[in-house]
């Protein structure tokens, strides 16, 4: 399953990038990383290096800290212990080199924007002051929309798009800065199978053509099973890192959950049976910022088995 890492590393950006990856060539590097809210430890002892062009899937039940992991990589959630470097520097400095596809939230405010406006945010939305009239930016937006197959609805407000169409636009936005890391938080949520495939293909094509590392948070491994190099499985009882073959086994998951879990492989798909969903108590966010973006779905919203579709 492991894909060869493409040799083509994206061209260096003059003066803007932190001087490239760390010594080891990893784009993301965690050492003894721990995250806890008050006395509740979400994860600890996390050692992980993500290489250019690697596809890392982050799995785990609700409340196991998948979203906190994303927030940490974005520099929005300081670690309680250990170190985290992104592109050799602090996550905050990595800013524009990390393309972020957030979890689909309700669209109240975005509904009135057009697809092209969302993509344009990705390019210059963070700059203060009046916007210079530049055809170059506009052409770049058109280019990006075409590359994700969203040209047909470039001028349609997001509120009028389907979930799959919006997700294409989202990926376009994340790719707008030509990032070296693509960070996707549950990008397949509430998409049908065709759109799931389209979205994963877009992400995969990008890492092959540009050597972009992909960190892909998902509660369902099957749509990306064929693409994943390594899995980070977060569970209430600890975590495991390795290839899907190593991590997604009855033995390894049983140990993580501390109870009997069966992992079955049926027609190239992985079915997990008996994994308790989340901690016994509903995930409580003691940290106030965690409320702002209610990332975790309600406990019980995800079925006991990871794969229920026929």
């Amino acid at each position: 399953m492991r894909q060869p890492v493409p040799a083509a590393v994206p061209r260096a950006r003059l003066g803007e990038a932190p001087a490239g990856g760390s010594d080891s060539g990893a784009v993301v590097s965690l050492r003894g990383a721990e995250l806890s809210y008050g006395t509740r430890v979400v994860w600890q002892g996390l050692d992980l290096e993500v290489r250019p062009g690697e596809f890392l899937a982050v799995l785990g039940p609700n409340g196991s800290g998948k979203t906190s992991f994303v927030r940490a990589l974005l520099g929005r959630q300081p670690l309680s212990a250990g170190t985290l470097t992104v592109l050799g520097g602090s996550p905050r400095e990595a800013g524009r080199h990390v393309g972020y596809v957030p979890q689909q939230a309700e669209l109240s405010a975005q509904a009135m924007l057009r697809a092209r406006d969302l993509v344009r945010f990705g390019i210059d939305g963070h700059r203060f002051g009046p916007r210079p009239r530049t055809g170059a930016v506009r052409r770049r937006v058109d280019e990006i929309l075409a590359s994700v197959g969203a040209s047909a609805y470039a001028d349609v407000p997001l509120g009028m798009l389907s979930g799959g169409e919006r997700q294409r636009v989202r990926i376009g936005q994340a790719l707008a800065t030509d990032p070296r890391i693509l960070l996707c938080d549950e990008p397949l949520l509430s998409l049908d199978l065709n759109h799931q495939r389209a979205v994963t293909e877009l992400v995969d094509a990008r890492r092959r053509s540009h050597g972009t590392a992909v960190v892909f948070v998902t509660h369902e491994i099957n749509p990306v099973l064929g693409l994943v190099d390594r899995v980070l499985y977060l569970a209430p009882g600890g975590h495991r890192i390795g290839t899907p073959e190593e991590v997604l086994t009855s033995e390894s998951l049983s140990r993580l959950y501390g109870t009997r879990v069966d992992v079955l492989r049926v027609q190239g798909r992985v079915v997990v049976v008996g994994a308790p969903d989340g901690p016994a108590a509903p995930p409580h966010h003691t940290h106030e910022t965690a409320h702002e973006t209610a990332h975790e779905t309600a406990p019980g919203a995800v079925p006991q088995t990871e794969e229920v579709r026929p």
Partner: protein
Amino acid sequence: MTLAEGVWHQIFSFENYGELLALVRNSLIAGAALGLVGGLAGVFVIMRDLPFAVHGISELSFAGASAALLLGANIVAGSIVGSLLAAGAIGLLGARARDRNSAIGILMPFGLGLGVLFLALYKGRAANKFGLLTGQIVAVDTPQMTWLLGTSALVLVALAVIWRPLTFASADPDVAAARGVPVRGLSFAFMIVLGLTVALSVQVVGALLVLTLVVTPAAAAARVTASPVLLPLLSVVFAVLSIEGGILLALGSSIPISPYVTTISFTIYALCRLAGTYRTRRWGVRRTAPQPA
């Protein structure tokens, strides 16, 4: 018939129109500035879901203005102080929508109560009291003009500087924060800008009807366009039309300005909503067409 005619003449009267027009020259200029500022701020009020905050701020602005009236101070200044206190409190107390609405619900009656108290203590002209709530057009004298225009200019400059990241932060806060946009700081900055805008609007349309300038025009524009250029532009045009039309119609009558402004503003919204259904249908057709894979 005579009764109906009498009512009609109370509402629309154009006798001595030319002479009256000279009296409201200041108001027309202030109205244009207000339309500009209100129309632009309204875009973010819609985007950030803040209409209730606008209403809450306007009640405290009213309290500030009535306090100034009682103390014989500058009414515009009083109303700005009230607005800024309210906007600051809302900005600090309620980063999240639910907290914000409770904070506003608590502040609003308190502000209105204070305002009523100050007005009850005030022994001056009754029209001044009523005007703060429902608007007045001839009250804008030269020192007030300076305040109004100065504050408008300040708001315009602030909006020009924060426009882009504020749009990003309003529409897409998650990604904006990830890209290093100071989402919270901008949120607070906009509350202050909004406070100033509301304080200005109170002077002309009155505290009870600020929404007609700060929300309705932008909401109407959002019905007919999604373009980030056309939307604020139309919003400003609608706001200016409403207020200037209102001033011109209210000129000869004995009725306050607000019903004229609100009626024009509402009519524009209704028309835009109608036009908007056509637009929605057009996209509906597009979306059933086959998609490229």
